[in-house]
Every structure is written in C-alpha cells, then in structure tokens.
C-alpha cells in the first residue's frame, strides 16, 4: 500500500469512528416502539421479576421493532432486553442507523453495564465513503476500542483491503492490523 492510499484509508476509518463513538456513548436513554402489530396480536412478553422483555415480530406482516437513542435508531424483528442487567440482544437482520452510517448484522448485542457492543455474523458498516465487512465487531466503550475480526474487508470507491483482524483505537485515532492484509486499489484516474 502506498502512502497516499494509507492516509486515505485511515481518514475513512476515522470518519467512521467519529460516528460510532457518540452512538454507543449515548445509549442509556431511549424509547422502544413495536409498530405495525394488530391489537389482537401479541407483540412482546415481559417478565417483571426477571426484568426481561422479549419480542419477536418476524411472523407479523409490517411489524417492526424500533429503538431510538436521540438520533440513533436500531431496527430489528427479534429482541431480548434484560432491563436489570442493561443488556439488549437484537437478532435476525438488525440494523443500527445514525446520520450517514449504518451498521447491520445478524446479531447486535449491547452490554450496558460493561459498556460493550458486539455485532456478529455478516457485519456490515456503511459510511458515505466506505463499506466494512467482518464476521464480528466488538466495541468497548470504556477503552474506546473497536475490534473487527473474521474476514474483514474494507471497500472504498476505488479499492479494497482484506484481512482477518484489526483494531481501532478510537481515542488515539490508531489502527492496528494483525496478521496479513491484502489491498488492491485502482489508480488509473489518479
């Protein structure tokens, strides 16, 4: 990778990080809505003693679970929320949206007490400038670190990078690549 491309890559990831941090940091005040459920159909089940709310609207046409934290929105069709442990699990094509980026995965978990977010299976982060694919994304709010693992692929408008593991130290704006990374860029029009 030449210096010009490395700088571009780092800039793109910093842009992504600048969006991700506030999303995760503000996730303790919010509103959950389950929409599109007819009045005679069960939308969710709550166990007050355990403090666990469970909803599965996959079989209900036009139904959707929406969670809003200020300007962040999580959309999904199946969720479990332990209100006592401050743990939320979204499964089956969950999406997290904020302004100009989107995180989607089969599973998105948020551990409020530990201040961690985990996305699993078919992780995709889309920004205005790039798409990042990975098997897993682990974000630690305390250390401000985001770890992409498993078949990591970053696609830019004119190229892509592939590897198995890389860590973003968001506060320090550092990127650490583990193992080998392969990159290909189209330099024809530069």
């Amino acid at each position, binding site marked *: 990778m030449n210096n010009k491309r490395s700088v571009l890559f780092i800039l793109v990831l910093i842009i992504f990080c600048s969006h991700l941090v506030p999303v995760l940091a503000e996730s303790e005040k919010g509103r959950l809505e389950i929409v599109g459920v007819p009045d005679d159909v069960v939308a969710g089940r*709550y166990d007050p*003693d355990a403090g666990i709310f469970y909803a599965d609207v996959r079989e209900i046409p036009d139904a959707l679970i929406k969670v809003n934290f200020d300007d962040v929105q999580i959309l999904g069709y199946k969720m479990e929320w332990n209100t006592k442990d401050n743990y939320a699990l979204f499964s089956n094509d969950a999406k997290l949206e904020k302004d100009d980026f989107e995180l989607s995965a089969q599973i998105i978990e948020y551990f409020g007490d530990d201040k961690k977010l985990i996305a699993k299976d078919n992780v995709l982060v889309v920004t205005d400038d790039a798409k990042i694919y990975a098997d897993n994304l682990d974000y630690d709010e305390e250390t401000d670190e985001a770890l992409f693992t498993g078949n990591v692929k970053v696609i830019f408008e004119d190229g892509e990078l592939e590897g198995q593991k890389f860590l973003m130290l968001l506060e320090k704006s550092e990127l650490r690549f583990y193992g080998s990374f392969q990159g290909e860029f189209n330099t024809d029009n530069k």
Partner: protein
Amino acid sequence: MNLTAKTKLIIISFVLIIVTIICYFIYLVWFNPPPPAENIPPSVQLHESRLIGRKDGERQWEILTNSVLQAEGQVTLTEMDKITLFQEQEPYFLVDAEKAIWDRRKNNLELYNAVIVQIDDEFKLESDLLILNEKDSTLTSPGQANIDWQGLAIVSEEMILEMETGLLHLKAGVEIKDREFSWKMSEAIYDLDNDLMDFYGVVIFETEVEKDEQ
C-alpha cells in the same frame, strides 16, 4: 231532665258518630301498618349484619356491615366494617369500599370507590367501581383501574381479573411503570401466578433516566 224524642235521637246519633270516628282512628293506628314512604319501594333493613356469598357451597365473599337494605332483589350495603374475598375457601383479598350492591338475581357484587388489597402480598387495586361476578369468578373494573403489584404501577382504562386462572386482562390505555421504565400499550394480559405479561398491539417503552443521572 225531660228530653224530647227528637233531642234523644240527635244525642244518640252524635255519640255514635264520635264512637265511629274513634274506632276508625284506632283501626288506622293499631291494625294498619304505616304506608311506604313515597318513592321508596318495599324493603327490609337490617343493622350490624354479616353477609356471606357462596358458590357451589364454597364461601366467595363475606361482608360485615352496619347497614343492609334489601329492595327489589338488590341488597345495598353501607357503613361496612370488613369485606373479605375468598379463594379456595381461604381469605384472599381484603376490600375497603364506600358502598356495595349485591344483585341477588345476577349474583353480582358491585363495590363502589373500592380499594382491594391482597392478603400477605403486594397487590393493591383501586377503582371507582368493581364488579365481582360469581358465575364466572371475575372481578371487573369497567372504568379506570390503578394497580400496584410487586413494584409495578399499572393504570388501565378497563380491567378484568379472572380469579380462577389468575389472569389480569388490562384493556385500553394501558400504562405500566417499572422502576425508571414506562410501558404503554393498547392491551396486556398479566399472568399473576407465573408473573408474565403479554403485550398486545403497538408497544412503546421509554426510559426516564439519562446516563448522567445514574
């Protein structure tokens, strides 16, 4: 004194009239019950009574009251000391109510401005009108019901409690507050025995605590 026959006849007639009038008044006072007051149907009123409602021989409710008025198949209870609702023959709820009307034909017990408290537990129910139907063992609040249950504050525009199954049907305008969380939905069924709630229709959940407040 010499009286003419005509004078004697007049005196005797006068005495007879007086006696007849006196007899009539004696009859009115002694042999005729006083007529019912206007607009009040024939009734029986008892004081310091205990009423017990049973279903299939099992005691369903018991009321100690200072005033019982029965009229046209309805028993109206006021100045009540103690109301106990039973489940499987054991006292289950204690009730404080301003007035109760027992419809003997429908076997309904209506409780006005009632507060129901579960014995040895944390269940409290308040409503302007509660109807205890013994046929299907339900307790219905046709208007707003306020419920406190194990730390939950529940408000519902209508409520039906199935006593035998322990299912609490919350109908229309349901709001549940649990710690700093608030749930809103159109309808919910709360399985009190298993402590599980099913939410129906559109559900809204809101937290009231911001991160900085924790």
